[in-house]
C-alpha cells in the first residue's frame, strides 16, 4: 500500500476533527481558566498566624465592642463581641467593614503641618480682645474633649464649642420602657447602641411618627404617617391639642395618648430641642424612669477647671479669629457650615483635623490628616441609651502611616500643656473612684473595679475592655430643658448613610443594590414624574447639588428623601424648603 500525500492530509484532517470531539479542547479551556485565576491582576490573600484582637468601634457614639480576626498583625474581619453588656454582640454594616478605612482611596494622607502651625500662631498673635481662639468638638465627652478644655482654659480668649445638648447629663433607659413613641428617630437603624436597642425591643411597643416609611417605621408596631412638617403639631396633639392638619385622625391620636398615659413606663424620643417632646415626657413621667440622670466618667482633679462648654448659639457673630475643628472622631454631629461661617472674623484661620475631604475640609483654610479607625487610640463616651457612665478605648489595630497629626497634640502644644498620657491619667482617676465593674472582652468576665489594680485596669482597657459605672441611687430625676427650637423642614428627610469615610465595600448597599440611598441619591414618590435613575438638581436657598432620582412609593408626594452626608446637611440643614429640578 502506497501512502500518498492526499492520505496524509486526510489523516491530519481526521485527527483534527477527532481531537475536537474528544475532551482535550475542553480540558484545555478548563486549564486556561485555572491559569487565569492566578494571573498577576488577582491579589493573593496574605498568609500568617491567625489571632484575635479586641477593640471598640469609634465610627459612631455607640462604641460597640469589636473582635478582630487578624492574620499576623493585620485585621481581616471584624465581628461583635457576644456577651458585651451594651453592644451585645452586634455590629452595624459600617462597623463590620471598619478595618478597610485606612486604605480608603479618598482618605487624607498629608497636609502642610508646619505652615498651619505658623499660620495659627500668627492669627493668635493678631487676635483682638473681643476675638476668640476656638476648638469645635463635634463629639464631646471624650478625654480629648477634656484636653481641649484644659488647653483653652490656658489660652487667653480660648473657647470650647460643642453641639447643642439640651438633655446633657441624662440618658435613656430603654430596658425600663414599655411603650416608646419616636418622632423620626432611627431607633432601629443606628440610633443608640444597635445591640442594646434590639435586645430592649422585645419589651416595648414602638410607635413611629414619621412622614416616610423608614426602616424603623417599617418595623414599628404602629406607624403614624404624619404630614411632612407637621411632626411638632402632632406632638402637641398628643400632649392634649388638636390633630387637625397633621394627617392623623384625632381618634387615633387620642388612642396613642391614652396608651402613653396608661401603658407605661413610657418614653418619647425626638429632636431634643422640641419643647413638645420635653412636655410629653413630663406628662408621662419619663424623667427618673425611662430618662435617667447619668454621672460623668471621673476625671482627674488636676484637669479642673477647664474652659466652659459653649453652644454655637452662644457664640457671637464674627468673633472667631482661629477655629480648629476636630473631625477626626467619626460619628459627631455635623453642624451646617452656614451656621459656623457667620461666627468667623474676617480672615479667620480655620483648620480641620480630619481623615476625609468630604466634611469641613471643603470649607477650612487647611485640612490636616489624622489617624482613622482602627489606627487611632481614643476613648468613647457613653451612648445616649447607656443609663450609666462608661469608659472604653478604641485600641489601635493598625499602625498609622507617617505624616499624620494629632489634633489633641496640636492644641495642647499651642497651650503649652502636656496631655500625652491623658487617657492613662483618666483611667487612674476612674480606678481611684473605685466604683463600677469592668467587662473583659477576651474572657467575657465581669470584675468589680475595686478588685483591680490600676495596671490591670489599664491592661483590660487596652484589650478592648469596658468600665461601667454604678447607677447613682441618690441622683434626682433629670430636668428636661429644651434649647432654642429650630424649624421643622417640610421637604427633606435624611436616611442614615454614615458620616465621613465608609468602607468601599458599602457599595454592596448603595451601587450594587438599592438597599440604602447612596451619596447624591434622592428618593421621590412615583407621582413626581421622574423615572428611576433620572439626573436632577436638588436646590435650596443655600445652593444646589446634582442628584440621581430613585422612585419610592414609601416617600409621600411632595417629600424628598436623601442620604445624610456633609454636603447635604450644608445644603438642607438651614433651609426650610427645597425642590428637585429636572436637568
Amino acid at each position, binding site marked *: 500500500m502506497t501512502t500518498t500525500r492526499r492520505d496524509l492530509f486526510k489523516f491530519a484532517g481526521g485527527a483534527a476533527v477527532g481531537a475536537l470531539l474528544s475532551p482535550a479542547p475542553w480540558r484545555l479551556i478548563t486549564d486556561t481558566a485555572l491559569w487565569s485565576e492566578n494571573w498577576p491582576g488577582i491579589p493573593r490573600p496574605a498568609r500568617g498566624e491567625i489571632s484575635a484582637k479586641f477593640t471598640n468601634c469609634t465610627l459612631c457614639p455607640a462604641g460597640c465592642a469589636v473582635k478582630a480576626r487578624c492574620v499576623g498583625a493585620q485585621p*481581616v474581619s471584624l465581628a461583635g463581641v457576644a456577651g458585651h453588656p451594651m453592644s451585645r454582640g452586634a455590629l452595624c454594616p459600617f462597623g463590620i467593614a471598619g478595618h478597610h478605612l485606612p486604605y*480608603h482611596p479618598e482618605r487624607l494622607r498629608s497636609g502642610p503641618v508646619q505652615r498651619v502651625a505658623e499660620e495659627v500662631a500668627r492669627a493668635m498673635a493678631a487676635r483682638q480682645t473681643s476675638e476668640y481662639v476656638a476648638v469645635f468638638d463635634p463629639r464631646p465627652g471624650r478625654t480629648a474633649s477634656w484636653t481641649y478644655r484644659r488647653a483653652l482654659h490656658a489660652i487667653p480668649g480660648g473657647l470650647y464649642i460643642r453641639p447643642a445638648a439640651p438633655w446633657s447629663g441624662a440618658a435613656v433607659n430603654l430596658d425600663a420602657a414599655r411603650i416608646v413613641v419616636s418622632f423620626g428617630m432611627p431607633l432601629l437603624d443606628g440610633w443608640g447602641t444597635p445591640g442594646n436597642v434590639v435586645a430592649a425591643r422585645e419589651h416595648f411597643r414602638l410607635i413611629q411618627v414619621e412622614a416616610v416609611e423608614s426602616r424603623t417605621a417599617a418595623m414599628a408596631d404602629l406607624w403614624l404617617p404624619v404630614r411632612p412638617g407637621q411632626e411638632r403639631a402632632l406632638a402637641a396633639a398628643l400632649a392634649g391639642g388638636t390633630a387637625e392638619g397633621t394627617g392623623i385622625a384625632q381618634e387615633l391620636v387620642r388612642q396613642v395618648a391614652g396608651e402613653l398615659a396608661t401603658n407605661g413606663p413610657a418614653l418619647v424620643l425626638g429632636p431634643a430641642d422640641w419643647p413638645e417632646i420635653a412636655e410629653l415626657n413630663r406628662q408621662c413621667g419619663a424623667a427618673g424612669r425611662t430618662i435617667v440622670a447619668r454621672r460623668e466618667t471621673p476625671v482627674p482633679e488636676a484637669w479642673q477647671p477647664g474652659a466652659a462648654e459653649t453652644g454655637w448659639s452662644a457664640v457671637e457673630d464674627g468673633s472667631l479669629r482661629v477655629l480648629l475643628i476636630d473631625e477626626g472622631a467619626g460619628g459627631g454631629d455635623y453642624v451646617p457650615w452656614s451656621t459656623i461661617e457667620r461666627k468667623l472674623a474676617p480672615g479667620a484661620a480655620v483648620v480641620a483635623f480630619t481623615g476625609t475631604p468630604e466634611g469641613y475640609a471643603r470649607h477650612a483654610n487647611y485640612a490636616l490628616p489624622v489617624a482613622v479607625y482602627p489606627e487611632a487610640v481614643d476613648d468613647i463616651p457613653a451612648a445616649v441609651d447607656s443609663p450609666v457612665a462608661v469608659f472604653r478605648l478604641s485600641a489601635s489595630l493598625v499602625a498609622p502611616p507617617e505624616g499624620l497629626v494629632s489634633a489633641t497634640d496640636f492644641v495642647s502644644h499651642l497651650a503649652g500643656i502636656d496631655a500625652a498620657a491623658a487617657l492613662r491619667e483618666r483611667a487612674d482617676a476612674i480606678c481611684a473612684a473605685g466604683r463600677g465593674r469592668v467587662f473583659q472582652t477576651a474572657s467575657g468576665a465581669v470584675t468589680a473595679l475595686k478588685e483591680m489594680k490600676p495596671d490591670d485596669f489599664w491592661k483590660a482597657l487596652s484589650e478592648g475592655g469596658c468600665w461601667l459605672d454604678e447607677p447613682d441611687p441618690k441622683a434626682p430625676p433629670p430636668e428636661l430643658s429644651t434649647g432654642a427650637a429650630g424649624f421643622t423642614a417640610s421637604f427633606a428627610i435624611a436616611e442614615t448613610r454614615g458620616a465621613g469615610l465608609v468602607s468601599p465595600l458599602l457599595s454592596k448597599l448603595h451601587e450594587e443594590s438599592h*438597599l440604602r440611598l447612596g451619596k447624591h441619591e434622592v428618593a421621590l414618590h412615583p407621582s413626581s414624574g421622574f423615572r428611576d435613575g433620572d439626573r436632577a438638581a436638588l436646590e435650596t436657598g443655600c445652593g444646589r447639588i446634582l442628584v440621581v432620582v430613585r422612585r419610592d412609593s414609601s416617600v409621600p408626594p411632595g417629600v424628598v428623601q436623601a442620604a445624610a452626608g456633609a454636603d447635604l446637611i450644608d445644603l438642607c440643614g438651614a433651609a426650610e424648603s427645597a425642590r428637585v429640578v429636572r436637568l
Partner: protein
Amino acid sequence: MTSKKETIRPARYGMTIDVDRCNGCGACMVACAVENNVPPAHAGANDRKGLTWIRVYKVDNGQDYPGKRSAFVPVLCQQCGSETPCAHVCPQQAVDVDPATGVVGQMPERCLGCRYCMAACPYHARYFNWWDPAWPKGMEKTLNPDVAPRMRGVVEKCNFCYGRWHEARQRAAAMGKPDTEPVDYVPACVEACPTGAIRFGDLNDAKSEVARGAKEPRSFRLLESLGTEPKIYYQSQRDWVREIASAPRPGAEKGNVNG
C-alpha cells in the same frame, strides 16, 4: 458480638430567616463580602452587574402611601435540595452538591462563564464576574486567607461560607472529634445579623433551632411550587409577605408548576 460500622451522618445545613425581625441594615451583605473576598463595586457596576452573594430586597404590600407597608427579605442561594437547576444545566460540572453537608457549591476553576446557571436559577442568586476583582491600594491586605478571590468571567454565589466549614472541621479534628459528625459553624451573615433574624443549623438534626423553626406554621420557602426544595426557610406573621414568596405564574392555579 456485632461490630458497629461507623458511618458518616450527613448534615443538611439550612437557614431560617425571620423577615419580621429583619430591619434591612445590610450588615449581612457587608459581612458576606468581607468573608468571601467579594470586591467593591467596579466603576461600571450597578444593581444588575454587582456581586452580592446575599442581597436584601425591599418588598411591599403593593399599596401606595400611606397604606404601603414594607418588609426586607434577604435572598441568597437557596441551596436547593432537589432538582438543583444550576447543577442540572452546568456543562462543566462546575456546580456540585456536597453529600456531607447538602451545600450547593460553585467551582470557579471549572466555570466557563456560559451563565446557563444564572438563567436557570429561579432565585437570581448567582452573579457573574464582569471585571477582574480589584481592591483599593492596600486593601488587599485585608483579604480573608481562607477564600481565593475569583477571576473575571466566572459565576459565583453563596456557599454557606464553606471556608468556615473547613476551618470548623479542622478545629474538630484537632480536638480529636470523629469526622463522622457534623460540625458547629455559622456563616458570616448569621454571625453579623444584629437582630438575630438569620439562624443556621442542621435541618437533619430534629433538635436544632432551624429544624424546629422550619416546621413552624409561619415558615415558608421561596417559589416552593417549583419543587426545588430550598433549604432556606423564611418566617413571617404577615400574610402579604408569605403571598409574595409563592409568586404564582399569571393565570396559573396556585401550586401548579406547569402553569
